[in-house]
């Protein structure tokens, strides 16, 4: 995808094939000869890790689907059947459940990295927006997957989240009935969630292809935020990026395996081992950890409609940051003020995550409001103003200069 390819197939069959479909040169130019900035740090390995996690989720998910039954009377039982009677079913299910968490952990690191180093700025706006779309699809997929277990938390999470749409004035209730396929969360809801949970990962895979395509057109950003100027600034994707990605993927898998084999239920909720019961409301209804910051934003606002708007706005605002950020300098490395506001924003995100797991009362509500205000202020006020007022540090002449300069 990066223009002229130097790929020369050796065997006669590949030469024959290449003339008819230049798949080899596409792969060669994208994943072998593709120039990557030489100064990428390990935060840039998360793109590869995310691709790997998507593959893990699809493979384990397809096998789980062979054993799962999407029916309100059988869903919980069939999941337990997988845990008990399917060969290595416990492994498949724990890989899939913890894989979702690892997927989100990786995507959050990937997003924080993008914001810190200004990877969303011109000419990478489309690349960034495609990423936001992938993230939205991931959230929908993860939520529906959690419902499929049909435990208490599954059922009540489905009830709470679908009920958000009832806040829409006028047509809200009609929309919720339409989403449920009935007058309460029930079998039609479970069936359509199952169907969509199987469909959306392939939509994600499609957008990932576009995301990688856009990446290979614009080229990767790097910790300095300045574009490569000469061949001295880049190295070939293979072997340099591939081996680096492979190593860090190995490290990431150690963390993944720790959760799967040793603490597989740590990130889950105990109530989800109780079969769904529409007649009993759990003492607390909390989503999975990766949605907690948004749940805190939702609950920090007393008005339901405004809360729902804030919830969706907190994600949609991400799509606009290429234009909200007015600074011409990309990397936070050369933006002393932005860097501090960025870390405060990270604290606000983690704080919101913690508050999302707490009962909305007393000091927790006040804190949620402070963090929510800061979350939005970071994008809507600080980002536009910093570009005007911030005095940035001088940029190095080139990537290779910065590599030499940093260590000299």
């Amino acid at each position, binding site marked *: 995808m990066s223009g002229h390819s130097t790929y020369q197939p050796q065997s006669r069959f590949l030469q024959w094939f290449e003339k008819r479909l230049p798949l080899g040169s596409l792969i060669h130019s994208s994943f072998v000869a593709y120039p990557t900035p030489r100064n990428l740090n390990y935060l840039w390995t998360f793109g590869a890790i995310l691709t790997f996690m998507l593959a893990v989720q699809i493979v384990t998910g397809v096998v789980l689907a062979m054993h799962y039954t999407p029916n309100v009377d059988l869903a919980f039982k069939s999941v337990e059947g997988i845990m008990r009677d399917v060969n290595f079913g416990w492994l498949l299910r724990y890989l899939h459940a913890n894989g979702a968490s690892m997927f989100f952990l990786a995507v959050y690191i990937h997003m924080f990295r993008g914001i810190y180093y200004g990877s969303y700025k011109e000419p990478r706006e489309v690349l960034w927006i495609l990423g936001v779309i992938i993230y939205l699809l991931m959230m929908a997929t993860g939520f529906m997957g959690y419902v499929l277990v049909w435990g208490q938390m599954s059922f009540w999470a489905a009830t709470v989240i679908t009920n958000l749409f009832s806040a829409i004035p006028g047509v809200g209730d009609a929309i919720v009935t339409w989403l449920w396929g009935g007058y309460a969360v029930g079998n039609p809801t479970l069936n359509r969630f199952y169907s969509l949970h199987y469909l959306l990962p392939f939509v994600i895979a499609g957008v990932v292809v576009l995301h990688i395509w856009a990446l290979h057109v614009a080229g990767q950003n790097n910790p300095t935020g300045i574009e490569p100027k000469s061949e001295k600034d880049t190295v070939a994707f293979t072997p*340099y990026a591939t081996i680096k990605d492979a190593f860090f993927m190995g490290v990431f898998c150690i963390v993944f395996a720790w959760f799967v084999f040793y603490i597989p*239920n*740590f990130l889950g909720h*105990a109530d989800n081992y109780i079969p769904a019961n529409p007649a009993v409301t759990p003492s607390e209804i909390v989503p999975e950890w990766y949605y907690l910051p948004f749940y805190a934003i939702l609950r920090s606002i007393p008005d339901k409609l405004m809360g729902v708007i804030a919830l969706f706005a907190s994600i949609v605002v991400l799509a606009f940051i290429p234009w909200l950020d007015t600074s011409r300098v990309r990397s936070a490395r050369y933006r002393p003020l932005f860097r501090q506001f960025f870390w*405060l924003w990270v604290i606000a995100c983690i704080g919101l995550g913690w508050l999302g797991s707490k009962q909305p009362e007393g*000091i927790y509500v*006040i804190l949620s409001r402070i963090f929510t205000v800061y979350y939005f202020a970071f994008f809507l006020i600080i980002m536009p103003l910093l570009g005007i007022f911030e005095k940035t540090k001088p940029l190095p002449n080139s990537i290779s200069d910065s590599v030499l300069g940093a260590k000299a």
Partner: protein
Amino acid sequence: MRIVKYTAFAFVLAGAVATAFSPAMSEEQEAPPRLKWSFAGPFGTYDQAQLQRGFKVYKEVCAVCHSISMLAFRNLAEPGGPGFTQAQAAAVAAEAKIQDLDDKGQPIERPGRLADYFPSPFPNELAAKAVHGVAPPDMSTLAKARTYQRGFPWFVFDMFTQYQEQGPDYIAALLKGYQEPPKDFQLPPNGHYNKYFPGHNIAMPPPLQDDQVTYDDGSPQTLDQYSKDVAAFLMWVAEPHLVARKRLGFQVMVFLIVLAGLLYFTKKKVWHQVEKPRELAHGQDPGKTTI
């Protein structure tokens, strides 16, 4: 700069205040004491004798009211469990009466087989409710469905220490947790005061007393021992492949650490050429440096 520092200070202060207030506001649930379990930790395995004792307590006491519908008789003889022989498991099954149909489609009651699941004490939830007021929960996943709030920062440490036994700790504590209610506590009729039950008002009367179940292996016949044994048994029922999981986990860990190590050194070798300018900057001759 000042604004940033003040904001950061305000955040930290707010966080500290919230942490200080949080114990007072958390739901009223006493943390059960932490017990030692043979199945805890990366090399944990079930204690077969303990599971057999726990099964005996379950069969003679719990099973009167609680179902365990996802457990099959064959499970008793499967590896990683209580270690009954096939013949022993079949004998347990034969004692049970299973509702079935005969060749002519007429309902019959027949002795259980290995493939059967443990029959429930009540035909359905309503029937259980009619007798007890509250339907006693099915115990198939109970040890994973019960827990208690660990709170910050303990839940962070749990990630590293692998503390995963909140369920059995809670169950063991609950079985011993019956007390006289405090004077100011309004206990509803048919309620029982339990120190560890959330809200303290539990429908289940104290199920176990000393010397209630006879142990054949000389273990102490005390409430304390019974509650530990039955909690361990319920953990196995909820997670029958725990031993296989931890064993495979160790193998996977060793493999991944070796793989990551090899990849690290390969990466170092591959990048050595590229990182030469760095060495030049340090006044070294890249031709003479090795990795």
